[in-house]
């Protein structure tokens, strides 16, 4: 089982590496480039069997070090970053939390984290899906700046789907505008 999952990680990694989808950052001062045609060869579709998002698993057999995530005295016990409405910038108050997670991830180089981006129900489902991804990206960027390897981070946006709080009010919405750091092996 373990070997299979590992192979899948490697495979997914390899695919991502050869896919050649690397996009150059857009320089805001230059005019928009001509529309480019993306060839099939240029962007390799990920086959079904490695595309499940389930391919991530801890590389280590002993996962007891993950118990610290349940220790309320540790900054690692906080695994959620909240956002303002239609906002995707990480508020300064999450610095201690994310600094701790970055250090934790760097200490355990084969540990993987999935950043799940969510939005509240207001506005449109597709826009919220994009917003959830923007939020996950903001958290990823923060972790990467601190030195976490790109290979340790996966992102997925669920938009306004799967709310943790169901009410049609600000209290519920505030809880739903979030990025959840979900560690594999837990």
């Amino acid at each position: 089982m373990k070997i299979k999952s590992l192979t899948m990680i490697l495979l997914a990694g390899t695919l991502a590496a050869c896919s050649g989808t690397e996009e150059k950052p857009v320089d805001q001062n230059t005019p928009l480039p001509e529309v480019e045609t993306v060839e099939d060869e240029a962007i390799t579709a990920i086959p079904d069997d490695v595309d499940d998002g389930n391919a991530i698993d801890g590389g280590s057999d002993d996962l007891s070090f993950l118990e610290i995530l349940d220790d309320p005295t540790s900054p690692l016990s906080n695994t959620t970053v909240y956002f303002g409405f239609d906002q995707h910038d990480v508020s300064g108050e999450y610095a201690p939390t994310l600094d701790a997670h970055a250090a934790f991830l760097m200490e355990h180089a084969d540990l993987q984290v999935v950043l799940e981006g969510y939005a509240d129900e207001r506005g449109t489902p597709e826009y919220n899906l994009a917003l959830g991804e923007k939020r996950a990206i903001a958290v990823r960027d923060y972790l990467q700046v601190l030195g976490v390897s790109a290979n340790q981070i996966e992102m997925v946006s669920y938009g306004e789907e799967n709310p943790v709080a169901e009410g049609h009010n600000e209290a519920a919405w505030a809880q739903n505008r979030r990025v959840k750091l979900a560690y594999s092996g837990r």
Partner: protein
Amino acid sequence: MIRVNVFFILVVLCGFNAAVVKADLTFVVTDYVEDAIPIAVVPFQWKGKGQLPGDMAKVIDSDLSRSGQFKSMSRNKMSSKPHSPSDVQFAQWKRQGMDYLVIGSITPKEASRYSIRFYLYDVIKKTQVAAYTLPIHRRVFRKAAHRISDIIYQKITGEKGAFDTRIAYVTVEKRKKRRLYRLKIADSDGHNPKTMITKSNSILSPAWSPKGDKIAYVSFETRRPRIYIQEVATGKRTRLPSFKGINSAPSWSPDGRKLAVVLSYGKNPDIYIYDLRSRKFKRITRHYGIDTEPTWTPDGKSIVFTSDRGGSPQIYEVAATGGRAKRVSFEGSYNARPRVSPDSRKIVMVHRDRGSKKFQISVLDRETRSTLVLTSGALDESPSFSPNGRMIIYSTAGTRSRNILAAVSIDGLVHQRLAVQRGSVREPAWSPFSRR
């Protein structure tokens, strides 16, 4: 705005034999136009033996009333029930305030077939407006009734009817801690619901192909948003080539050969066009902000979409070949999920006024740029035009944190609510006209 508030419940289920499939959605017309046209639809004569195959006049009557543009006469007020032209006494119907009269008969034919004969009369002018004979199969009995409603609607209003159409929508049911998502298709009156697919992860953004034979949608079944195309008749499903990050918001080109989609590659959501034949993607927008919810103009030349490039979500338009996008919505702090009207003149969208907390369905005039708010909910979303552009179906918050469907006319005068049997219902998409 002149409105008559009437609570008018149409029980569309009565009077049918056991073969009728229960409806998922039941219509409640909450507002109709004050000058609704009075019409009498007399029960059709059944010329066969045994039980009637169905109450065709009742289906027609319900269709016309549901449009909000007609006010139908109740059967117990009819002092005669003519079936053939020679029995029609115009004076009687005029005295009872009717403008139009519909009569008809159903004759059985071999092999479960029927011949439907119906007449439409202008009571004021004392003339026959239409007379049709429709040979039909028993299994399309209700569909035939909707076609007759379409004919009557068009003869009287001059506008094409959209009764013989379907609605796709997603239902969400909670089972203990799990949620069950179903993509369903029903007739435009909520009858004959059919489940296309059932999943334990979200289903979003159903979109009908222009021929109405396929539906593209987004499913999270692999725990990642991916685009699927499913054939309506066979249920056969294919998945579009998928990439890291978001694969979402499919929209068919008017010729059915391409899909505008959103891909993010885990970096940034932009609009792409996928050619179904060459299976290639072409990038249309390139911006560090969110670009999503693409939709085509009816001429297939432009893509209208949502972007937050100006700081808040607003509507933009770009040539379908790419190039520079221009902003088209200026009123309000949030404008998203555009759909262009079939006549190209309007854009319906989710809108929030500056200083308001409500997300409402609004219509933007593409020429004058004025915005008209059509609904009064706080969480209205996913507007979709009927193929004749007359009605807009959308999702709104119901009671007990459920979503329900509602519809509003393009002028904001007619309002309908579609009560769902159980669970939540969202993401409605109105089909194109059915092919005959």
